C-alpha cells in the first residue's frame, strides 16, 4: 500500500513528466480505438457490400482456370480466363447434399458486349428502310422520317467540316467528293423519286452521307450471366428500380440503374442530372465549380445531339416554346438551344424542368429503353463474334451502394443467352468443323516445305461452288433461322449447362474456413474439378484493399506507440535524474532495489491505466456522437466501402480492452530502462553527490 501511495505522490510531484506521458497516452489510446473502430467498420461495410451483392461468401470455379479469378475482372478490366465448369446441376446437387453449411449456390459467368446503335442518320435511315421493306406504308410516318433525314443532311456540312474534319485529316479531293455527295443529297431531284427508288437512295445516304457524322455512340456493356430469380432471391442487396426482373425461364437483361442513367442515357440529359445532383445534394454552385462549368460547356457544344434528334415539326414547336421561355426572338433552334443550355445557379432548376417536360420526350433519351429489344454482339474467348437480340426488362441496384461505380459492371443476363454468347464449341459445331476440315483437305506443311516447286498450279473446277451458289440464290439460310423463337426455358434447362463461376452463400459465414475445406474435400472425392476461394480473394484487388487498410492502420498504431515509448522513457529518465537524491536517500535508509523497482512499476501502471482510460473515454464519446450519426460518404466510391451513404461506428469494449493492455505494455517497456537505472543508484554515491 505504501508503494502505491508513494507512486501516486510521485505522479503529483512531477507534474511536467506526468503531463507529457499522460498526453502521449491519451492521444495514442484515442487514435488506436477510433482507428481500429473505423477500419473494422469499413472492413465490415465492404464485406457486406460484396457478400450480399455479387461475391457471396465463397466462389467456386474450374480447377483448369488459366487466370486467377477476380469477379471485378483482371488488370485490363476483362473477365479472367477461368475456363468453365461443365454442368451446374451436378455441382449444385452434390455440394448441397454433402456440405451442410451451404444456403444457396448462384451460377455466374461474365463477359462484355458491344452495342452499336449507329449515329442518328443511320438510325433514321434504317427506320425508313424498314417502313418500305416491311411494306408498312404509313405515309405520314414515311414523310416525317424523310423530313427528319433531310433536316439532318442540311446540318451535316457545317458539322463535318467544323468537327470531324478537324479530328481526322481529309484531303482536298475527299472534301470535294463530300461536298458533291451533299449537293446530291440536298437536291430536290434526289427526293422527288425517293419512294420509287428507296433502296438505292437509302444506300446512297447510308454509304456516302451517314459516315460523315462523327459516331461515338458505341456502348460497352459488361454483363453477368446468371439465373435472375435465384440471383435476386440470394442477394439481399438486389433491388429492382425500373421495370421488372427477367421473368423466370425467359431470355433478357436487367441493367444496373447507374449504368442505365450514366452510360445509356442521352449525354446532354445525364450532364444536366449530374449538375442537379451537385447543386442539390452536394451543395455546390455552378459559379464556384469548374467541373460543373465544364459540363455546361460540353452540353452547349453538343447541342446538335439534341436538335438532330428532333423531327422538323417538333423542332418548330420547341422553337416557339423556347422563344417564350427565354423571352427571345431568335428563330434558329441551334442558337436557341445553345442559349438554353447556358445555365447558371439562378436559372438551372427551371431550365432542367423545361428540358424534361418539353424536350426530352422527343429525343432518344436512352440508347436502349426498358422494355425494348436491342442487339448485342460479344467476342468469345475463342475469338468468334456472337450476336443476340435481347430484351431489357428493367434496371436494378444494390440497395446500400447504388451510386458506387464499382457496382456498375454487373448488368444481368439470363444464363441461356450467356451460354449462347459464350460460344462454346457444341458437339454439332465440332462435327461441322470435322466435315469442313475434310473438305479443305489441307496438307500439313512446314514453312520450309511451303516453297518447294511442284506442278500444283491448276485451273479450278466448280462443282461444289455452283451447287452452293444455287442453294444460296434459291433458298438461302431461312431454315436455319426458322426454329429460333422466344422459347421459355425450364429450370432443368437453365441448370443443366455450363457456368464459369458460382457464388455460394453460407448459413453460418463464421464457419467459412471449415466449409471451404469441406468443398475441397467433396470436389476431390467426387472429381468435380472445382476450386473454392473466399469473398476477399474473389473480389481481387478490391478484396485485398481491406488487408492493405489494416496493415496501414496497424503500422500507424505501431509508429504512434513506438514513438510513445521513447517520449515516455525520456520523461521517466528526466524524472529519475530529478529524484536521484530522493532515491539515494531511500536506499540509504534501507529501501531495497526491489522496493524502488516496485514503486516505479506502480507509478507507470497507475499512470498508463489512468491516461489510457481517459483516451478511451474520449474515443467512446467521439464514436458515440459522430459514429452514431454516421460519417457521410464523401463520394460515390465511398458508398461501396461504407455499404451505404454513411458509415456508422460502434464502440467495441474488446477493442478498448486491447488498447488499454497495449498502453500498459508500452508504458512498462518505456519505464523498464529508467527503473533499472534507478535501482542502480548506490546510497553512498547518492548522498555524496548531493553533499
Amino acid at each position: 500500500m505504501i508503494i502505491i501511495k508513494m507512486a501516486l505522490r510521485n505522479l503529483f510531484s512531477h507534474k511536467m513528466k506526468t503531463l507529457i506521458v499522460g498526453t502521449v497516452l491519451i492521444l495514442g489510446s484515442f487514435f488506436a480505438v477510433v482507428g481500429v473502430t473505423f477500419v473494422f467498420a469499413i472492413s465490415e461495410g465492404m464485406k457486406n457490400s460484396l457478400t450480399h451483392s455479387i461475391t457471396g461468401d465463397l466462389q467456386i470455379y474450374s480447377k483448369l482456370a488459366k487466370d486467377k479469378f477476380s469477379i471485378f475482372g483482371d488488370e485490363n478490366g476483362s473477365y479472367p480466363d477461368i475456363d468453365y465448369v461443365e454442368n451446374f446441376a451436378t455441382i449444385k446437387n452434390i455440394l448441397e447434399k454433402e456440405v451442410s453449411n451451404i444456403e444457396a449456390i448462384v451460377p455466374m459467368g461474365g463477359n462484355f458486349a458491344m452495342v452499336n446503335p449507329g449515329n442518328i442518320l443511320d438510325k433514321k435511315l434504317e427506320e425508313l428502310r424498314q417502313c418500305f421493306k416491311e411494306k408498312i406504308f404509313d405515309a405520314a410516318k414515311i414523310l416525317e422520317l424523310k423530313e427528319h433525314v433531310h433536316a439532318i443532311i442540311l446540318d451535316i456540312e457545317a458539322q463535318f467540316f467544323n468537327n470531324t474534319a478537324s479530328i481526322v485529316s481529309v484531303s482536298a479531293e475527299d472534301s470535294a467528293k463530300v461536298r458533291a455527295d451533299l449537293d446530291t443529297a440536298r437536291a430536290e431531284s434526289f427526293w422527288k423519286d425517293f419512294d420509287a427508288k428507296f433502296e438505292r437512295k437509302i444506300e446512297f445516304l447510308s454509304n456516302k452521307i451517314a459516315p460523315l457524322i462523327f459516331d461515338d455512340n458505341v456502348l460497352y456493356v459488361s454483363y453477368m450471366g446468371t439465373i435472375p430469380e435465384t440471383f435476386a432471391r440470394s442477394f439481399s442487396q438486389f433491388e429492382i428500380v425500373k421495370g421488372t426482373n427477367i421473368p423466370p425461364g425467359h431470355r433478357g437483361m436487367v441493367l444496373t440503374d447507374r449504368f442505365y442513367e450514366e452510360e445509356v442515357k442521352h449525354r446532354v440529359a445525364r450532364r444536366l442530372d449530374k449538375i442537379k445532383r451537385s447543386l442539390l445534394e452536394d451543395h455546390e454552385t455552378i459559379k464556384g465549380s469548374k467541373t460543373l462549368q465544364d459540363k455546361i460547356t460540353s452540353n452547349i457544344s453538343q447541342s446538335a445531339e439534341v436538335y438532330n434528334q428532333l423531327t422538323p415539326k417538333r423542332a418548330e414547336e420547341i422553337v416557339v416554346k423556347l422563344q417564350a421561355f427565354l423571352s427571345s426572338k431568335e428563330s434558329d433552334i441551334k442558337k436557341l438551344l445553345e442559349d438554353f443550355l447556358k445555365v447558371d445557379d439562378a436559372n438551372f432548376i427551371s431550365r432542367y424542368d423545361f428540358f424534361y417536360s418539353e424536350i426530352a420526350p422527343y429525343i432518344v433519351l436512352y440508347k436502349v429503353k426498358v422494355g425494348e429489344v436491342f442487339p448485342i454482339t460479344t467476342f468469345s474467348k475463342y475469338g468468334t463474334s456472337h450476336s443476340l437480340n435481347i430484351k431489357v426488362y428493367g434496371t436494378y441496384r444494390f440497395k446500400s451502394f447504388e451510386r458506387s461505380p464499382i457496382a456498375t459492371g454487373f448488368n444481368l443476363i439470363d444464363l441461356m443467352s450467356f451460354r449462347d454468347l459464350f460460344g462454346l464449341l457444341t458437339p454439332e459445331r465440332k462435327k461441322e468443323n470435322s466435315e469442313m476440315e475434310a473438305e479443305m483437305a489441307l496438307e500439313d506443311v512446314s514453312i520450309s516445305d511451303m516453297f518447294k516447286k511442284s506442278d500444283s498450279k491448276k485451273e479450278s473446277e466448280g462443282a461444289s461452288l455452283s451447287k452452293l451458289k444455287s442453294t444460296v440464290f434459291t433458298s438461302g439460310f431461312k431454315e436455319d433461322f426458322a426454329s429460333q423463337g422466344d422459347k421459355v426455358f425450364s429450370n432443368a434447362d437453365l441448370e443443366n449447362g455450363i457456368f464459369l463461376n458460382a457464388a455460394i452463400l453460407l448459413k453460418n459465414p463464421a464457419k467459412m474456413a471449415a466449409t471451404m475445406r469441406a468443398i475441397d474435400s467433396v470436389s476431390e472425392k467426387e472429381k468435380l474439378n472445382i476450386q473454392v476461394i473466399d469473398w476477399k480473394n474473389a473480389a481481387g484487388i478490391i478484396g485485398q484493399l481491406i488487408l492493405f487498410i489494416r496493415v496501414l492502420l496497424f503500422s500507424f498504431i505501431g509508429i504512434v506507440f513506438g514513438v510513445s515509448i521513447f517520449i515516455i522513457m525520456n520523461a521517466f529518465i528526466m524524472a529519475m535524474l530529478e529524484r536521484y537524491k530522493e532515491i539515494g536517500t531511500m536506499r540509504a535508509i534501507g529501501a531495497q532495489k526491489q522496493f524502488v523497482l516496485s514503486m516505479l512499476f506502480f507509478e507507470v501502471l497507475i499512470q498508463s491505466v489512468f491516461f489510457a482510460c481517459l483516451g478511451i473515454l474520449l474515443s467512446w464519446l467521439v464514436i458515440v456522437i459522430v459514429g452514431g450519426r454516421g460519417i457521410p460518404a464523401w463520394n460515390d466510391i465511398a458508398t461501396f466501402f461504407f455499404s451505404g451513404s454513411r458509415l456508422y461506428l460502434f464502440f467495441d469494449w474488446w477493442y478498448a480492452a486491447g488498447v488499454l493492455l497495449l498502453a500498459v505494455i508500452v508504458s512498462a517497456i518505456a519505464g523498464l530502462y529508467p527503473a533499472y537505472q534507478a535501482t542502480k543508484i548506490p546510497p553512498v554515491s547518492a548522498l555524496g553527490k548531493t553533499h
Partner: protein
Amino acid sequence: MNHFFVVILFLMAANLYALTEAETSAIIKTVDDLQRNSGDYTSLCYIKDTEKGKEPRLNQALVYRRDTDNKFMILFTKPKEDAGKGYLKIDKNLWNYEPSTGKWDRKTERERIGGTNSRRGDFDESKLSEEFTAVYDGDEKLGDYDAYKFTLAGKNGVDVPYPVLKLWVDKASKNILKREEYSLSKKLMRTSFYPKWMKKFSPSKKSDVWIPEEIRIFDELEKGNTTIILIKEVDLNTLPENMFTKAWVESKSK
C-alpha cells in the same frame, strides 16, 4: 588497294542489278494485274482459325466481288450458327450483317473477318499499286523460288489495315510468296505465306486471272495463332445486278 577495287566493283555490280523506281512500280502493278479480273467474281472459301492450345474453328463462305464497281461481299455458309452472316463493302463502307439480330454495323478495314485473323483485303482483288508506294529491298530466295523483296508504305488518306508491308514476289510468275504486315510503329503484326496459286480464265478480262489458292497467316502478336484461307473454287461469270445490296444479304436469312 586491290581489295578496295574488288569492293567497288562488287557494289557497282550490285547496283547494276538493283531495280529502279519505275521497274519496282511496274512489278507491283504486274502483281495487281495478274490478280485483276475486271468483272464479277465468286469463290468458295474456307477459313481455319487456330488459337494456340485451342480447338480450331472453321468457316465456309462465299466471296462475291464486282471489281468494276469496287463492291465486295462475304456470305458465311457454314457452320449453321454462322450461316447468313455477311460483310458487304460499298465504296469505303464495310458493313457487317448479323442475321440473328437483323442488324447492320459499319466496320473498319481492321475488322477481323468472322472473328478470325483474316481481313477483308485477304479476299479482295489486289490494289497494292493504288494503296502503297513500293521500294525495292533486294533479292532473296524463298525455298525453290527466287524472289524480289519490297517494302511498301501506305499512301496518305488510304484506309489500309496495316500501313507498312514487306513483300516477297516470285521473279518468274510475279505472284506474291510472302507478305509481312507492320503497324505504324514498325511492329510486325502478321506474316502471310502464299504457297499455292491457281489460274482461271476470265471472260471479262479475256485472259487468265491468278488467284491465291491458299494463304497461311501467322499472328506475330499472339505467337502460335494461325489462320488458313483456302480458296477452293472460283467462278468468274457475271452475277445478278441487284446482289450487292443490304436487301439481298438480308433476304438470304429472313
